[in-house]
């Protein structure tokens, strides 16, 4: 093998070593800043309505529902209470209809 050929091979090996070293260095330092594509901004994931506010089981709040006084067990009071419960049941039906309507929507 001629001296020129040996020199050529040495140069090629040197170049390969330099390239390998550069690649290793690039990876360890986070990659080339030139060729990294800018990620397309995506819509921020929307926080869902927090429902950490589970209604309490004990002593439900019945204020403003039309119930008579808790100590009044007269017929009149019971009639009033029945009407109040019926009204709330009616509003629950509305709630259910709204809920069903929202569930039928897909997106």
């Amino acid at each position, binding site marked *: 093998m001629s001296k020129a050929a040996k020199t050529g091979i040495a140069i090629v090996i040197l170049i390969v070593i330099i390239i390998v070293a550069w690649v290793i260095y690039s990876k360890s330092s986070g990659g080339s800043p030139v060729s990294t594509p800018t990620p397309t901004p995506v*819509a921020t994931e929307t926080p869902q309505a927090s429902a*950490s506010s589970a209604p309490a089981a004990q002593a*439900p709040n019945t204020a403003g529902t039309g119930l008579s006084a808790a*100590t009044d067990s007269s017929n009149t009071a019971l009639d009033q209470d029945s009407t109040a419960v019926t009204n*709330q049941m009616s509003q629950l039906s509305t709630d259910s209809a709204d*809920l069903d309507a929202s569930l039928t929507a897909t997106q």
Partner: protein
Amino acid sequence: MNTLHSKIIIGASVTAAAALMLAGLVSAQTSATAAASTPAASAITGSSVSAADRAATAAANRQARVAARMTTAEQKGVTAITKRVSDLASLVTRVQAMKNVSDSQKASIAATIQNLSTNLSALQGKIESDTSSSTLRDDLTSITGSYRIYALVMPEVRIIASADRIITIAGMLNTVAAKLNTRLTAAGALSNLSDLTAAMTDLSAKTADAISQAQAAVAEVTPLAPDGGDKTKMAANTAALKDARGKLSAATTDLKAANKDASTVITALKKVKPTATTSMGSTTGQ
């Protein structure tokens, strides 16, 4: 955006028309001049102008079609956002009417909903100013994909609100049950006492189950988060929402049965002469 698109369309149309008119005039003038000299030259010039006209017209038409499509898509997006913002506003109203959550919790939920509404309004502004069809397409997709107003937020909050009312009604029926127990105790031995007692037992069981079902429904939907395009997660969310809905249906059935029990006992007690233990108090307007 509408204005911009209109300008683009009108501008394109005007440009095309002007080009056609100008080309026509030039063509006619050139043809007339050339016809006076050499018929062969006239034919060549006329053919060249005509090809340019067709290219200009085709380009203008393409531009107009793209602009029209963008306008239509943009209008659909604005309509979709407007409807969502409106529905979110009604949702806030419903949240404020909830009775069994604290004011701070209600404020937190309302603020979350309001935040969604604000983000949607910002998205609407972006859509209205989009000039790239690909950007517009991405923005339109994000109306549904990123927010899931109808697929998650609305049903989730509606479930919580319904559960809240169920618990309120159960509380009301429990209050009524306490009064009925007082009346039954005062009434003493009744011929149908066992039936009434059974009704009271059922009433109590049904209200307890209604509360339990409502709480389970809330617990089920609380951890749900937007799927962000993950179909598996979306399917899981949908399944959870439907299951929670089933729990609320069961709770509603419980309440109807409990209310029927209460009505049965009330009807029976009305036939019993009131005793001294029966308070004839006034309404407090609770």
